[in-house]
């Protein structure tokens, strides 16, 4: 699995600029990841006032990381469209990751990346996006191994699968963070910045159910496909996405790198990850064709 590459997905949470800058500096200096996706994908309201981007890009590139710019996953109004047009203009300097059909359209015919928020469930759809210039395709986490194998067999683009972190499950124009604080979206007071890994949602019986992150709904569990990495590599999937959380992502990425390099086995890797994040529930159900929240023993 030595040719397998690790990528750090776009930060889904509304951290402040200083925290984001420090985070990417640490990733640049210490994390064994090859690609780093930067940019706001959840809510265009969060973009104003953030000023980490140029410094983060410079530090990451100087450290030899390849930077990819991610676009919004739900594009509704003129503000969102302006954001996407600005990002698309960077396409000559950076690979841009489209997460909405508007971005696909703006990037059509140029080399670009397709993010996991674009629906690709079958070969014909995969081929359509490849024909439009997609060089990297990050597949939806809902897909079972059988679909991944079928898609990998026909893909010419580099395929990527999320192997760590809360799973993005839904996006809305309604802000659930604002709603949980009895606010509305226009007057949200940016309350999503209080929960660096999302806000847990429990059932009335206290069962851990989901997590919310502004307009986005995430899984309660954190996906971990440490045990499944060799099988995916054997399918021809060579890019593995770690979704950033407010944990030691340098250490997390080292665990995945060591596993890919065969330095540790699945059990050792799981132990190392759990030592880092002892209170976290992990899941791998989707990969095994089950409910996403399930943890299947491999």
């Amino acid at each position, binding site marked *: 699995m030595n040719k397998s590459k690790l990528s750090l997905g776009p930060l889904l949470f509304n951290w402040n600029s200083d925290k984001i800058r420090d985070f990417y500096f640490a990733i640049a200096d210490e994390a064994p990841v090859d690609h780093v996706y930067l940019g706001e994908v959840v809510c265009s309201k969060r973009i104003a006032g953030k000023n980490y981007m140029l410094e983060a890009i410079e530090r990451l590139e100087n450290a030899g990381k390849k930077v990819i710019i991610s676009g919004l996953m739900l594009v509704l109004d003129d503000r969102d469209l302006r954001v996407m047009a600005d990002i698309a203009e960077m396409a000559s300097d950076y690979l841009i990751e489209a997460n909405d059909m508007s971005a696909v359209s703006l990037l059509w015919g140029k080399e670009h990346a397709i993010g996991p928020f674009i629906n690709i469930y079958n070969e014909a759809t995969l081929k359509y996006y490849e024909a439009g210039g997609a060089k990297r395709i990050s597949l939806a986490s809902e897909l079972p191994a059988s679909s991944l194998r079928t898609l990998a067999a026909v893909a010419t683009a580099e395929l990527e699968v999320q192997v760590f972190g809360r799973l993005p499950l839904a996006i809305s124009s309604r802000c659930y963070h604002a709603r949980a604080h009895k606010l509305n979206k226009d007057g949200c007071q940016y309350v999503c910045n209080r929960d660096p890994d999302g806000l847990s949602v429990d059932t009335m019986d206290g069962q851990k159910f989901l997590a919310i992150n502004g307009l986005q709904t995430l899984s309660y569990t954190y996906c971990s496909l440490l045990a499944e990495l060799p099988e995916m590599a054997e399918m021809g999937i060579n890019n593995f996405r770690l979704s950033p959380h407010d944990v030691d992502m340098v250490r997390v990425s080292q665990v995945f790198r060591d596993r890919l390099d065969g330095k540790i086995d699945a059990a050792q890797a799981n132990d190392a990850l759990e030592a880092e994040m002892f209170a976290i529930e992990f899941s791998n*159900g989707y990969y095994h064709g089950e409910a996403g929240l399930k943890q299947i023993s491999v």
Partner: protein
Amino acid sequence: MTKLELVSPAGTPAALRVAVDAGADAVYMGFRDETNARNFPGLNFSVDELAEALDYAHAKDAKVMVAINTHASAGNSEPWIKAIDNAARLKADAIIMADVGLLDYAHRTHPDLPLHLSVQASASNAVAINHYTREFGIRRVVLPRVLTVPEIRDINGKINIKTEVFAFGGMCPMAEGRCSMSSYITGKSPNMNGVCSPASDVSYVQQGQNLKTNLSGFTINEFGPNEQAGYPTLCKGRFTANDKTGYLFEEPTSLNVTDILLELMEAGVSALKIEGRQRSKAYVREVVQNFRKAIDAAERGERLVIEMDNLSEGGQNTTGAYNKKWM
């Protein structure tokens, strides 16, 4: 101003005849398999039943649209290709699709078959819609239920195909076609299986005076003796976040746009879609009759507000994202 077309659901051939007789301009239906997003037991049409439905509807000047709006699964596109070919052969008035690979196939193979972009494609802006129009020749887009009326007006000014919006019935608070909450909890999702919060995973538990509704073992809601218990759709339950318990995602409520028909017309909307292929004939009849009246009144510039609380989930109505306050 455009004349609003009334598009009714039909889960069965009998419901289709009821919808046509009640005044629907068009009826949408699906085949009896995973190729449509209401793949429920006992519902939907065989190929022969579609042929009969087309004859019945055309005789009364109504249209029949075929929803083939799930995603073909990897390595098994046959059911979807067959559904498209059958709809084309029978000269359905349109097919409603979301999958890009299938849109590409339908456009190349059956250039005369009108294609509508399903709400499941989640095309929420003019740039995206124009891409689908340019690439696949779609003639109509069903807009996702995440847009305000001013946003819809703006989109209509920037595209040159018709827009259809949801007018009544169950309402996803999430962008449609981009939600896998159901498969995270149950293993089955709208995109992959044509179902959300499937009945096979639902249970009801009486605890003292209260009734709990469960989905795959998760408590979705708990109702007191004086509350009307609703179906445990997983985004319509009561949950706890930030130490508060309530309807975090959405109340058990139905969309009803009868009081904003004039605004939707002014925003350039061409067609109104009623949700509910899983609903009874009686439901279809009453909703279609009411909307027929409301649309005909709107044509005369009159506002006819029809509550239909008896037909609504939880007896409540909302105009959803059409009004920005909802967000």
